[in-house]
Every structure is written in structure tokens, then in C-alpha cells.
């Protein structure tokens, strides 16, 4: 299985990110877990593009085997979009903190439930 080692690493990171997102209640930690998930996806795309003995995809006369440039392009876009998502998520977390007073998921849900019961009366 040494040939598929890169996939094993990717999958471990993906599962770790997923676990952090679904099991931890703190909103900032969830966002960090989402970031970990995203970086594991970058690895998923770039690892198959690497050719052992190749070099970075900048064409010059000294080399003739290059790593695949196409995943690099896609992942560049993905990284920037990821940070945009993170920024928007953090802005939402700040607003939630100001509205509810906490960034723990359980406390927010309880408070929401109480507020909706109070509104119904």
C-alpha cells in the first residue's frame, strides 16, 4: 500500500477536520476544523500531480519532466476562496457573539429555544 500512502494521509486529515466540525461545539473551533478539511482537499488534488524526478511546472531548458500544473491552478483559486469563506464565517461568529453572548453551539441553541418560547407567549 505504499503507493497509496498519500491518499491515506489525505483521508486522515479529512476525517480529522470532519470530526472537529461535527463534534466540537465552539464555533471558532468549527471554523478551524473546516480549514483543516479544506487543506486536506488541496492535498488530495495536488498529490496525484507530482511526478517523482520532475520539478515545479516552470518551463526551462534544464528540465524536461514537470509536475502537473493544472491542479496547482485549481487549488490556488480554492485557497483564496477558502480564506474568503473563513473571513465571512468569522464575521458571522462575531455578530452571533454580540447577539447571544456566547459562541458555544449548545448555549446558542438553548437561548434560541427560550427566545422562541418567550415570543410565542
Amino acid at each position, binding site marked *: 500500500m505504499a503507493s497509496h500512502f498519500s491518499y491515506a494521509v489525505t483521508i486522515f486529515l479529512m476525517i480529522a477536520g470532519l470530526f472537529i466540525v461535527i463534534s466540537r461545539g465552539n464555533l471558532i473551533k468549527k471554523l478551524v476544523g473546516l480549514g483543516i478539511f479544506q487543506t486536506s482537499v488541496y492535498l488530495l488534488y495536488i498529490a496525484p500531480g507530482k511526478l517523482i524526478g520532475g520539478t*515545479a511546472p*516552470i518551463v526551462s531548458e534544464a528540465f524536461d519532466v514537470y509536475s502537473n500544473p493544472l491542479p496547482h491552478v485549481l487549488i*490556488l483559486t480554492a*485557497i*483564496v476562496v477558502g480564506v*474568503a469563506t473563513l*473571513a465571512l464565517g*468569522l*464575521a458571522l461568529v*462575531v455578530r452571533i457573539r454580540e447577539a447571544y453572548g456566547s459562541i458555544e453551539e449548545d448555549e446558542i441553541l438553548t437561548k434560541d429555544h427560550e427566545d422562541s418560547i418567550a415570543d410565542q407567549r
Partner: protein
Amino acid sequence: MKSYLVLRVVAKVFLPFILIFALYVQFHGDFGPGGGFQAGVIIAAAVVFYALIYGLANARRVVPERLVEAMMAAGVLVYAGVGLIGLLLGGNFLDYFVLDRDPVHGQHRGIFWVEVGVAITVSGVMLKIFYMFADRGRIDE
């Protein structure tokens, strides 16, 4: 007091190099790793560094909010503008080879301006987000 002085002097020495490195990454993106995104982020990081050492008010004086907001939109407009110029000069949207007599030089020009647009937008947005986050905390206190 002494440690603050060291920070300020070191920051003053480093900042020009950071900015030059950002410009190098931007314009050398054709021949080595780099390009618009990295350069934009490095410029934003340089201004954030300045704001950390010298205070947010000073940073706001050097890079005012209006400029940052204008930069956010200007980059996208530059990019779309390159595309529209391609349209006006006879090709399709975002065609570069009509921008000059020689198609290869046209590509050069197109790629140059497009990367500049990307760098402007990215640095503007990162800086604006930093200003917004820093601002919120200040008025709270």
C-alpha cells in the same frame, strides 16, 4: 520602553523590504512562483504589521479607509476592463492576443494587467477585513 523602541526600529527597517518583496513576487510571477494573489496578501500583511507596531490610528492615516475601499472595487474593474478592451478591439471577451500587434506581446500585456488587478483587489479586501475586525473591538472598549 527599550523593547518597544527595538520593535519600532526593526519594523521601520523591515517594511520597505517587505513591500519590495511583494512587488518582486507580483512582477516576477511570470518566471518563478508568485503572481497576483501572493503579492496582494504580502502587501496586506505589511500594512497589518505596521498597524500592529505603530497603532491603528497611524495605519489609518497612512492607508485611509477610502483608499482601501476603492482598491477593493478597482481591482475587479481592472480585470473586467481588460476583458472589455479585448471585446472592443475585435476579439472575444478576455482575449489577450488582440491587445497588441504581436499575439505573444498581447498575451504579455493581458497577463500583466490581469495580475495587477488581482493583487489590488486581494490586498484591498484583506486590509479592509482587518480594519473591520480591529474597529469592532475598539469601539466596544
